[in-house]
């Protein structure tokens, strides 16, 4: 996948290697490319589909096959291409513009990451209780509102991110919701930054230059 400009990516489709993309996100295509709505909503079988439905991570996807090039973009949102080489990317399903079929897609329960606090965090970030995990080798195009940038996370240097500006993270990263609530919040004079997402471990986090969620 290749970034054409801030809002458009180009993907090459070769026979035998499929691509998943959000429905309706194709801008243009050359060559002999077909778009088939994917009932299952991604990889895996019927069980995976049920899992996604239950987890509300079932953004309608379509399968792109054939040979040629496809341009993707959606809704005027910024697009960022993430190259994965063996690590894991955690991202909300509705932010996934397209991803290569070589990646394994699965749904994870946020409670696994920090128990009850993970659930609270999911609510605060708008992620809900579940999120989508992509693992393997390949590229992913992620949507964001406003420009997107990647911040490194090292074990000795955790990052704090506004939950609304959080887009995705990759690598071995633990995240928890840290609160900075005091009496000011109680009397309605808060700074508006009472909840923050604290990410620690080794990897990186993608942040958008906007606090507008999808």
């Amino acid at each position, binding site marked *: 996948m290749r970034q*054409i400009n801030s*809002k458009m990516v180009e993907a090459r489709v070769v026979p035998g290697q499929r691509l998943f993309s959000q429905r309706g996100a194709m801008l243009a295509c050359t060559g002999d490319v077909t778009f088939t709505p994917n009932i299952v909503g991604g990889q895996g079988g019927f069980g995976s589909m049920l899992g996604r439905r239950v987890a509300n991570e079932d953004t309608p996807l379509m399968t792109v096959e054939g040979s040629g090039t496809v*341009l993707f973009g959606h809704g005027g949102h910024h697009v960022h291409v993430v190259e994965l080489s063996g690590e894991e990317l955690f991202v909300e399903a509705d932010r996934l513009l397209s991803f290569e079929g070589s990646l394994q897609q699965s749904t994870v329960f946020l409670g696994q990451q920090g128990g009850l606090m993970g659930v609270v965090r999911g609510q605060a970030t708008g992620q809900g209780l579940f999120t989508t995990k992509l693992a393997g080798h390949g590229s992913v195009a992620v949507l964001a509102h406003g420009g997107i940038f990647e911040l490194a996370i090292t074990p000795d240097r955790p990052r704090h991110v506004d939950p609304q500006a959080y887009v995705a993270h990759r690598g071995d990263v633990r995240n928890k919701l840290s609160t900075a609530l005091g009496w000011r919040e109680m009397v309605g004079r808060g700074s508006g930054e009472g909840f923050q997402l604290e990410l620690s471990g080794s990897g990186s986090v993608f942040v958008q230059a906007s606090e507008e969620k999808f």
Partner: protein
Amino acid sequence: MTVDVLDPATLPVDDNVNPYVFCVDLNGEWFLQKGKMIAYYGDIRFDGLGHGPLDGLVAASFHSPLHAGHWVVAQGRGKLLLADRAYDVNSFDLEDGNLNIRSGNLLAFQPGLALKQSIIPGFLTLIGTGKFVAASNGPVHFVEPPIRVDPQALVGWADTPSPCHHYDHHYLRGFLGGVRALTGIGGASGEEHQFEFTGSGTVLMQSSEALMPEEAVGAVGVAGEQGRGVPGAGVPQQAGGQPGQEGLGGLLGGILGGR
């Protein structure tokens, strides 16, 4: 960080101030779409198209009664700033050329160009030599045919043969396809309808499918959000339908004598 304060001398000449604002160095006349001027320096008058001193100019460069109500002529000297809802704005030069552009995306053009209605509903054709300013959601991307483009991502095309509709519904074939088509199970890919360009030339695309709200001018009757801005989608219009037959459109129509 320093911020330069712009004045008439430091404003760019016929160039972008930033990706979202374009500055026209006006000395004479320009056509612009209503409401796209955000500021100006100098002595500039804005006149609607109609009977009056602009008759000659309008007769020479404006051949679209349907859009007459949405365009004005700026005349005078000065710096004119154009913008449109924070969309990316760019100017393009045409040299004895022929370019088709989505009507909502065209902001302004020099009278050296003649504006006509494209035979494709919802699009305008510019013929001649001169500069025009167009808006797009995200930077404009130029591609060469053969290519198939999502109708809503299409900004315009130059020098190519007229596009045709391409319907891609191969997945509705066979038994499963039949079940799918009958029951709607599985949904649609949203990419069944594309515009296909062949031949040589250039196709201009915007990087998103979000459209500018468009005036219902010359567009074939469409139903719902899905069909918005997609000529040929939805219900075909009957011959009796007379879009744009209102306001100044009728007035210019009167001038042009055709309607």
